[in-house]
């Protein structure tokens, strides 16, 4: 019994050690193997999870694990030494922070675009039709904090529309804005189109015209400390080809 446990433990350790074996594989080798970790913005959660499944199906023996979070939080984690292979950001400034810190292996590529939408309660009980409605008094509006990309984009859109909003709260990430509206605590918020789509029937979306909308660009890059660049680069190629179709299904536009 004990021998078997020890044996199993040994195998696990060997498997763990071998997860970095891919590094030694010659570049361009068709047989990809091993594991990569992808740091990705919260708004990519549903789309990337689907892409990961498809990628693993077409590349047997590989594994893609995701760490989703606010783009800026992920950058600070990578700067503090979090080990991973790929970073996909919801905006350019956060990607730039990583480039300035010399933590990227190559130039980033924009793989998707996202737009903003007003999120309202199911059935739009407050009859909100435009950004200027968000300035109405007596309306509880929730936005992302200015530090988070969605907060900065929302501020840009409101400025373009010439609307001043007094938010009830500045939430730490876009999903928190969504849940405050879904729970009925807030009447409206500004989130990405993809979030409204992912929330399903819990909320409704009100479109923001292109003239005042903001285009969020999503860049992706291989990290300098990647232990499996072959697999990381194969994953990015997949995102740029077959992945587009999947991302479009979740509301993104692709270049």
């Amino acid at each position, binding site marked *: 019994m004990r021998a078997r446990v020890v044996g199993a433990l040994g195998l696990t350790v060997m498997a763990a050690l071998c997860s970095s074996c891919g590094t030694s594989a010659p570049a361009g080798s068709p047989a990809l193997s091993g594991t990569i970790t992808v740091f990705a913005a919260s708004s990519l959660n549903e789309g990337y999870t689907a892409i990961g499944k498809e990628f693993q199906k077409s590349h047997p023996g590989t594994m893609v694990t995701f760490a989703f979070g*606010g783009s*800026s*939080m992920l950058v*600070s984690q990578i700067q503090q030494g979090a080990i991973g292979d790929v970073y996909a950001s919801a905006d350019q400034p956060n990607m730039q922070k990583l480039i300035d810190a010399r933590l990227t292996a190559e130039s980033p590529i924009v793989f998707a675009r996202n737009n903003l939408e007003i999120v309202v309660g199911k059935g739009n009980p407050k009859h909100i039709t435009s950004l200027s409605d968000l300035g109405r008094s007596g309306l*509880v509006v*929730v936005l992302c*904090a200015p*530090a*988070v990309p969605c907060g900065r984009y929302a501020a840009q859109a409101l400025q373009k529309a010439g609307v001043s909003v007094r*938010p*009830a*709260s*500045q*939430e*730490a990430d876009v999903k*928190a804005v969504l849940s*405050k509206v879904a*729970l*009925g*605590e*807030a009447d409206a918020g500004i989130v990405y189109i993809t979030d409204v789509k992912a929330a399903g029937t819990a909320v409704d979306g009100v479109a923001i015209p292109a003239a005042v909308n903001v285009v969020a660009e999503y860049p992706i890059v291989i990290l300098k400390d990647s232990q499996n660049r072959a697999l990381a680069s194969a994953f990015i190629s997949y995102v740029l080809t077959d992945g587009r179709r999947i991302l479009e299904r979740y509301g993104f536009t692709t270049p």
Partner: protein
Amino acid sequence: MALPLRSQPRARPSAPLPIVILAGAGAAFFIIPLIGLLLRTPWTSAWNELGSPEVLTALRLSLLASFSATAIALVLGVPLAWTFARLTFPGRSVLRALTVLPMVLPPVVGGVALLLAFGRRGLLGGWLATTFGIHLPFTTAGAILAETFVAMPFLVITVEAGLRSMDTRFEDAARTLGASRWTVLWRVTLPLVRPSLIAGAVLCWARALGEFGATITFAGNFPGRTQTMPLAVYLALETNPDAAIVLSLVLLAVSLAVLIGLRDRWLGAS
């Protein structure tokens, strides 16, 4: 003179090496993060960070909310502690477990529960809004409520322990001398459990000061209204790490002061 000491060889047992090593690692586990914080502190700009409007706003709100939460906890928690310590009634242990539940409950879960109770569509929230015009989510009152919810159990169990361990014969004597129940409570019971009251209030205040999860979930985050220090630390970490470190240091100093102040009363150290 050495002889009497040697006759008690068990007085200072020598520890086995593995214990010493593991205990050292355990202690290092707690100490190293503190050293990390101190080493990364931007001491030269610390004073400026501390004086910046964002930090001062968060500090002011944190003090207001944590002291208010402690006051509410004293008003509601002391009677609760007295009830648990002195009365026996069916369901007492269940009720007691429910009131101290926030001590082990993840604070975010507490925040969700508060939303479902006091939110606009919550159990009482709609009634509070239509009848009294009271709105709790996204207000300072909501932040105070969240802090009270998480911190009050610390006061309740500390005061209850004090009440249980006190000598009730003083109360009996006062009663036989003709004092009313109310007089006994005010003039005998509460003065006797004063150390527990102080310890409970300080622990409650410290917990309220550090509250994060329930506050951000229930009250949201807005500077000057609901953004207390822990929330400011969390958000500053992304944009202004220096400010986050300085704020963390302030919270650390307060926590340490509380522990040192209470070490005899509550932690049982001699």
